[in-house]
């Protein structure tokens, strides 16, 4: 099978991978680049666990081929840390508000919320709920995830890590 060189900037670091054209971006990140924080829950774009930011926009990495995003900047959950290596504001908020249980869906929420808050820094509770409306969580019942979105906005607004 023909293989292709893919160049990506992942979490600020230039990376290359040699992959078949059919290699999903999720598999490329997880298995070729070793970034296993991106999870795969359904393989058809419904659950959102695999959400990563491609050139800043949240996308389902299980619905993208790695070759189709050649040259892109990709941010995964590993890249949502604070500059000092501690938890980023969204990650911290999820811990503060018990916004996760098993943690499998959490990376997709963290990336989604990170992108959302960049454009909507001060959401209402209703908007916060809407913001995570495309991601499935089987554990939490979402109440604490919505609280986490609001808390993350608060932390980001305070300029705290």
């Amino acid at each position, binding site marked *: *099978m023909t293989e292709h060189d893919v160049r990506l900037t992942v979490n600020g670091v230039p990376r290359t991978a040699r992959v*078949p054209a*059919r*290699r999903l971006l999720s598999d490329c990140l*997880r*298995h070729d680049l*070793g*970034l*296993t*924080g*991106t*999870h*795969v*829950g*359904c*393989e*058809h774009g*419904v*659950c959102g*666990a695999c959400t990563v930011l491609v050139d800043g926009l949240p996308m389902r990495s299980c619905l993208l081929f790695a070759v189709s995003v050649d040259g892109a900047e990709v941010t*995964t*959950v*590993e890249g*949502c*840390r604070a500059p000092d290596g501690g*938890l*980023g504001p969204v*990650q*911290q908020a*999820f*811990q*503060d508000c*018990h916004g*996760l*249980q*098993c*943690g*499998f*869906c*959490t*990376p997709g929420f*963290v990336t989604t919320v990170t992108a959302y808050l960049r454009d909507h820094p001060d959401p209402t509770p209703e908007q916060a*709920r*809407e913001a*995570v*409306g*495309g*991601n*499935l*969580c*089987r*554990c*939490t*019942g*979402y*109440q*604490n*995830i*919505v609280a986490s979105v609001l808390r993350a906005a608060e932390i980001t607004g305070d300029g705290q890590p």
Partner: protein
Amino acid sequence: MTTRMFGEPIVRREDPRLVSGAGRYLDDLGSEALAAAFVRSPHAAARVLDVDVADALDVDGLVAIYTYEDLDGRVAEPLPLLIPHPALHAPRTGYPLARDVVRHVGEAVVMVVATDRYVAEDACERIRVSYETRPPVVGLEAAARAERRVHEDLPDNVAAHLVQEVGDARAAIAAAPHRLRLDLDIERSASMPLEGRGVYARWDEADRSLRVYSSTQTSTSVRFALAAKLDIPVDRVEVVTPDVGGGFGVKIMHPWPEEVLVPWAAMRLGRPVKWAEDRREHFISSAHERAQRHAVEVGFDGDGVLRGLDVTFDHDNGAYTPYGIIVPVITSTQLLGPYKPGTYRVELRSLYTNTVQVTPYRGAGRPQGCFVMERTMDAIAAHLGLDRAVVRERNFIQPEEMPYDHQLTFQDGRPLIYDSGDYPATLEKLRKLVGWDGFAAFRDEARAQGRRVGIGLACYVEGTGVGPYEGAHVRVETNGSVVVATGLTTQGQGHETVFAQVAAAELGVPVEAVTVVTGDTRRFKYAVGTFASRAAVMSGNAVALAARKVRAKALRIAAEALEIDPGDLEVVEGVVSVKGTPDVSIPLRTVAVLANPLRYAFDEETQRATQFAVGGGADRPPVADDDEPGLEATDYYSPLRSTFAAGMHAAVVETDPETAEIKILRYCVVHDCGRLINPRIVEGQIHGGVAQGVGGALYERMVYDDDGQLLNASFMDFLMPYASEVPVVETDHLETPSPLNPLGIKGAGEAGVIPGAAVFASAIEDAEGIPIHRMPISPSELWELRRREEQG
């Protein structure tokens, strides 16, 4: 003070790892492993005539193809019957790979091993299996009609038949002033964790040892099962549960065909092999639950007080019964909830169908039982024109009647005796929380505006903390850190936090000093598993008992070192000191050093424990006859019986007069799980349970067609609730401690889901004035019910 203890809502200690992508779930491991994929039956009932692998052999990267014929030893035998039951007269389990016959869509027929999953699936696509199909048995009606058989040697499709009776219920009902009959159905759903199943195995030929990682709810039991199946000594098998992306019951089932085949293939090939289930596989080859049809006869007096209850029901167990009949047995006992039935008769049949097998899903038969009992309560209230809450109250077991013996046998083979609970107080709290008494006015007001609103109520009692036992090992290291190991597994319940809280509280150390390991047979070999809301009760108490032993030993050693009576000592913040004289003290880490008499020091601190440094008389050995080296201990908690948690939920719904859309306006929970170790985590468990209750009541169902095809085997079509479907949950707690265990706790894991179908049926019925006898209910079904009601 950094020490936070039992009862504090501290944030979870596992979270920094999980929120930053540093968790390690099954498919994050074994990047060097070969990948397995399976050819699965596309037919619900068929004979396998031939497997032609010729085309697949050309696939570059193919390593091996296995069919049933390749299996050897005990791997070729049927999978184990995990829980035999006297009433399960015709148990049937499948083979790891189908032997001649397939009995549901999704049953594994061929295993392929290749260099990666893409290649393995390429090979699967090129394998041609010839089948001789036959018409399947789908649904309880077809199973009961028994015109066709699921298992050739079972003409009636009946796996089990069980009757339990307390008093003469039929006579009591016949003699009662009022009688009602109800038919109540619940459809299939499933646990559906976001991470599917997965197994990764490494065989070390030189060491003759096997390490298996599995996304399971029971690593210890997988270990025993694999040692037996693969015929290797138990001591050569390690099973490790990594981070697990949710279980909700389905992962307590074991050993799965794949869980046997992956290690088996790794041994044969001498190379690591991994299989991570995909979503479609999870839908068609793991397990489902819930489908039951119930017929209720109830007799009661003019006050709504029960005289007799007679419930007959059929349970759809799918194609096989590896997990026994736990689910219907739980329904049959737990449907009584907080009530005294007067007399009770329950008769269940468990039936085979050509569908995915049934094993417990969070709630495990209780949601069905709660639905049956609570629908009956509402029907009695409607029949007599009484308030629904009042009818319930009149039938409650009273606090002074505890412990209350139902004179039935529970799922663990032990008597069904409630240990404690205050049901009237629970109901009172719920009435206040939801505003029950003022609701009629709100409903009338809404109705005057053309709106339809309704309120529902449902009560349950849940047997939690089922035995036989759990254990824990607690060790204080010479650097002062504390390591806790318990054998049961974790799938998001926060065990790294709550067991640390228990140990910290018992030992008197900061919770930050405690590390918890779960589900790793290298660290703790004896355990049962995480299911039945048992982890906090069972391992929580085991951790407490082990920590108490460690504390007692620490006090004894410190007392010798300080030359003082142990009774005068306390442990605070990791330091043993004299009560009232904190200056006279010795750190626990030093006690840990002294606890292990050394010939060889390994650092400056441990020089204290070497033979020329320690004091003590020359007339006794350094380690006494009844002692062991190290500041550590193991203990087990094994309860006499389950402990019974309880709760009551209320929901307020609005139904659209035109579209029949069902909207949840409010959801209130009052919950009593005894003493809370961590209220934040308990609350989270309730929220998550309620969300699954909402799913089960309004959205989720497994839709099989007459050919036994699962039509909605994807997240596109199986509608799990998103944030937009789940209401804000308002909660209140009661804490009625359990007298059965040292910590006074009861389980909380399943509670939130139990009353879901019952409470929404009650609320929708209240809004619509149409009896609701079948759940889940969709807008189109409600619309259809309205149409039929209008036509009389």
